[in-house]
C-alpha cells in the first residue's frame, strides 16, 4: 500500500498569501493610476520672489493655466488640453476657461508661468482669463499668480 493512501483522503488548501499579495499590488496600482489621471500640473519653474508675501495655494479644486517655455514660443495648457500662443490658441483657451467657470463660478484660476519667460509671453494668458470671466458672465473670478515659497527656495 502506498504512503499516499495510508494518510487518508487528500486535503485541498488554498494558499492565501500570493492572493493577498496580488490584491495589494492591484490596490496600489489603481491608487497610483487614479492620482496620475487627475494630474493637471506639469512641472513649471515658478517664480521665486525673495521674502515672498504669498498665501498657501490650499487643497481646494482650482483651474491651473500653465505657461511653459518651448524655444521661442510658449505652450499654454489647461489640464490635458494644449493651446498655441497665437490668437486662435488664446481664443480657444479663453473659451475652455469660460466653460469651466460657467460650471463652477467660484473656481479660482491659477496662472503657473515659467519664471524665465518674458512678461509679454505671459500677459496674453492673463488677458485670456479675464476674457473668459467676461464670456462666462462671472461676477468675480479670482486669478492667482503661482510662486514658490521662500522657505523652500532658500534650501536650494
Amino acid at each position, binding site marked *: 500500500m502506498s504512503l499516499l493512501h495510508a494518510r487518508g483522503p487528500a486535503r485541498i488548501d488554498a494558499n492565501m498569501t500570493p492572493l493577498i499579495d496580488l490584491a495589494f499590488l492591484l490596490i496600489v496600482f489603481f491608487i497610483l493610476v487614479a492620482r496620475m489621471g487627475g494630474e493637471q500640473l506639469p512641472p513649471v519653474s515658478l517664480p*521665486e*520672489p525673495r521674502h515672498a508675501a504669498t498665501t498657501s*495655494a490650499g487643497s481646494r479644486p482650482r483651474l491651473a493655466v500653465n505657461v511653459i517655455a518651448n524655444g521661442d514660443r510658449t505652450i499654454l495648457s489647461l489640464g490635458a488640453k494644449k493651446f498655441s500662443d497665437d490668437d486662435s490658441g488664446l481664443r480657444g483657451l479663453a473659451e475652455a476657461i469660460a466653460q469651466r467657470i460657467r460650471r463652477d463660478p467660484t473656481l479660482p484660476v491659477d496662472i*503657473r508661468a515659467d519664471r524665465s519667460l*518674458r512678461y509679454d509671453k*505671459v500677459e496674453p494668458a492673463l488677458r485670456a482669463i479675464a476674457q473668459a470671466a467676461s464670456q462666462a458672465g462671472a461676477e*468675480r473670478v*479670482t486669478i492667482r499668480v503661482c*510662486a514658490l515659497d521662500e522657505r523652500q527656495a532658500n534650501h536650494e
Partner: protein
Amino acid sequence: MNRSRAARGFKLQLAMTPMIDVVFLLLVFFVCTVRFERNEQVYRLDLPSRGTTADPLALQDSPLQIVVGIRDGDRCSIELRADGVRQTAENFDTLAKAMEQMRRQSGVANGLFESSHPILVVPSAGSQWQDAVEGFNAAVRAGYANIGFAESKR
C-alpha cells in the same frame, strides 16, 4: 506508532517570502507616493466686479506704477511712478520699504496712498516674469491690496 515531533527534530522556520513581498510592496508604495515637488504659493489678483469698467483688468484710479526694467545680470532697474512721484529703487527690498513709507497708516506722518490705492506693475518690453512677480510681491509686502499687471507692449 507515531513518532513525536521532538523525535523528528522539529525546526521552527520563519516564512520569509510573504514578509519580503509585503516589505517590497510597501517600499514601492512609498517610493511612488512621495512627492518631491515644492509647495506652491499664490498671490490673489482679483478682477474688478463687472459693470464698473469695460476692461476687466483695468484699475479705476490713477495708479501708482512700478516700472520694472530688463534684467542685466543680477540687477534690473526699478522705478516708482505716480502723479508727483518718481523714485528709483536699488532692488525689490528697497522698493517694498519705499512703498511702505508711502502708504497712509498710523505712525507714518507723510503717507500718500491708501492701502486700497491701485498699484500697477508695468514690466518693460523684454523683462522677465520673475521680475514682474518680484514687483508684485514688493507691493504685497508693502501692504497694498489692489494690485494689477499692465498690458504688455508687443
